[in-house]
């Protein structure tokens, strides 16, 4: 662990540094772990404030309740559907936009003009009210399409992928062309396989975005059964807690009895992110640094 040249003082400093870092790391995990502990504890122990990081009176009852909760499963299903459909649309649109835009103007003269339209939408938008009215006008309100079409082209992801395509030597594309490949074949058989790391990064970004979104589900979907999971969790857990706060009443017995149940719902909502996280983590460091720090 230590080299011989290090003085005693340096070793002490290093150990203190490690301790500080481990404490910082635990601070990132602790709040989430606290929720897990609550969800696995007995109601009365939670109400008495006995639960911090270790479940008191271990029980799986809240999770058994979730298994019977139809509303929860409906919302979960909508979110899964949204991730699959929205993720697929984002995936296709990102590639279709990024590939032509990665070409030089000598090869695709309109490139810069189209690029500016895309970039402009990243910098300037109509704001909430016109956005809402547009979606209403296109007639997709109250359907899954309202959740996946308005953000169908994630411009930031397009820029990331475009920069990646541009880093691939032009000769690779030219070789495919000489072999008789058309532009779709070149894109599909040459460029996409070479960019899997980058494509995985942007796809995972879009999946996380779709899983975590709540606002569009809240204002664009009126039927409760069509709402995605985060919107449902908000209406169930966050809103009542805040309403309680503003009314100034400190404790509401009925709400307390639901504390473990709500904690369990929050934990279940976190699980899909925790599952894709290991894959995500492998890619995003490369993805981000490629897109943002350039020579």
């Amino acid at each position, binding site marked *: *662990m230590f080299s011989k040249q290090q003085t005693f003082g340096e070793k002490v400093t*290093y150990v203190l540094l490690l301790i500080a*870092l481990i404490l910082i*790391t635990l*601070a*990132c995990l602790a*709040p*989430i772990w606290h*929720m897990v502990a609550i969800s696995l504890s007995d109601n009365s122990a939670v109400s008495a404030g006995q639960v911090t990081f270790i479940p008191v009176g271990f029980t799986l009852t809240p999770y058994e309740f979730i298994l019977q909760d139809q509303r929860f499963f409906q919302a979960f299903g909508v979110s899964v559907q949204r991730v699959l459909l929205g993720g697929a649309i984002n995936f296709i*649109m990102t590639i279709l936009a990024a590939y*032509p835009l990665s070409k030089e103007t000598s*090869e695709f*003269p*309109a490139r810069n003009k189209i690029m500016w*339209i*895309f970039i402009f*939408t990243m*910098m*300037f*938008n*109509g*704001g*909430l*009210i*016109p*956005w809402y009215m*547009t979606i209403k006008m*296109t007639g997709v309100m109250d359907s899954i399409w309202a959740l996946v*079409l308005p953000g*169908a082209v994630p411009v930031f992801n397009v*820029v990331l992928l*475009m*920069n990646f395509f541009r880093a691939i030597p032009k000769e690779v594309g030219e070789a495919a062309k000489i072999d008789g490949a*058309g*532009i779709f074949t070149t894109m599909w058989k040459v460029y996409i396989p070479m960019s899997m790391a980058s494509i995985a990064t942007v796809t995972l970004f879009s999946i996380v975005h779709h899983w*975590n*979104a*709540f*606002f569009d589900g809240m204002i664009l979907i009126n039927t409760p059964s069509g709402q995605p999971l985060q919107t449902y*969790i*908000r209406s169930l*857990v*966050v809103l009542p*807690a*805040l*309403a309680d*706060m*503003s009314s*100034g009443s400190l*404790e509401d017995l009925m709400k307390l009895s639901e*504390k473990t149940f709500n*904690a369990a719902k*929050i934990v279940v909502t*976190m699980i899909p*992110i925790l599952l894709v*996280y290991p894959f995500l*983590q492998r890619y995003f460091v490369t993805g*981000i640094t490629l897109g*943002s*720090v350039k020579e």
Partner: protein
Amino acid sequence: MRTSRNVWGYYLMLTPPILLVLIYEIFPLFGLIIAFQDFVPGKGMFGSTFVGLDNFIYMFQLKESSQIFYNTIFIAVSKIVLNLIVPLIFALMLNEVLQNTLKRWIQTIVYLPHFMSWVILAGVLTNLLASDGIFNNIITALGFESIFFLGSNTWFPIVIIGSDVWKEFGFNAVIFLAALTAINPSLYEAAKIDGASKFHQLRYVTLPGIAPTIVLLACLGVGKIMNAGFEQIFNLYNPAVYASGDIIDTYVYRIGLTQHQYGLATAVGTLKSVVGFILVVLSWKLADKWANYRIF
């Protein structure tokens, strides 16, 4: 005529994304007309009366306007500054760790909150900060009076800024860590031979080495001054803390979609869009000038 066939192929590829961008990004820009109208949903955008700048004048006369602009800028600027400094310090600390396995574990865990939604984290935070939550249990155990974190105008902005830094510092450190690994190790060797202490190495090798990254992130921060974080505040605030927590985005939502004052809400939104646009263009220009960075 190989080239011309290629061009049409590119247009064919771009047709679906361009159509979607036109419908959902460009078309709403025409909706900005509402900001200059006494908009009545029944009459629509083309039937409503044109009132010129009335909505804007009314907006500046509202007494909450200055408070909302102040809240937005105060919260956003605090976040931008702290989200630069805290990740930088964290990255410098982590960079000193010699054990690679430990380093990877720490990184894996600190990135985690970034990927959680604000709905989930609001659920976690309301739990932690409740009158019977962990924080207040500690505070009362130490003999102090419990704090009404999410209901107090003194504490609310602190909670907002603090929880955002907590959520994002690990993720924001990624770019610094990448920049740190890019520093040539022989510079440290040379510094050591010259008898430089750890502090001197930091001062004369590390900081100059990552200075371009710091400058770049600072420049890009300028573009975010109008964005204080809608999702976070929307999920954590309540009428008791409107005075300290209401930002432009939450205000537009409240008066527009819940109180149906479309003209006024669009006027506020338009002002935000225009100022935001100028700031983003400025930030990209600064990034290009000072950090030699271009987005594409």
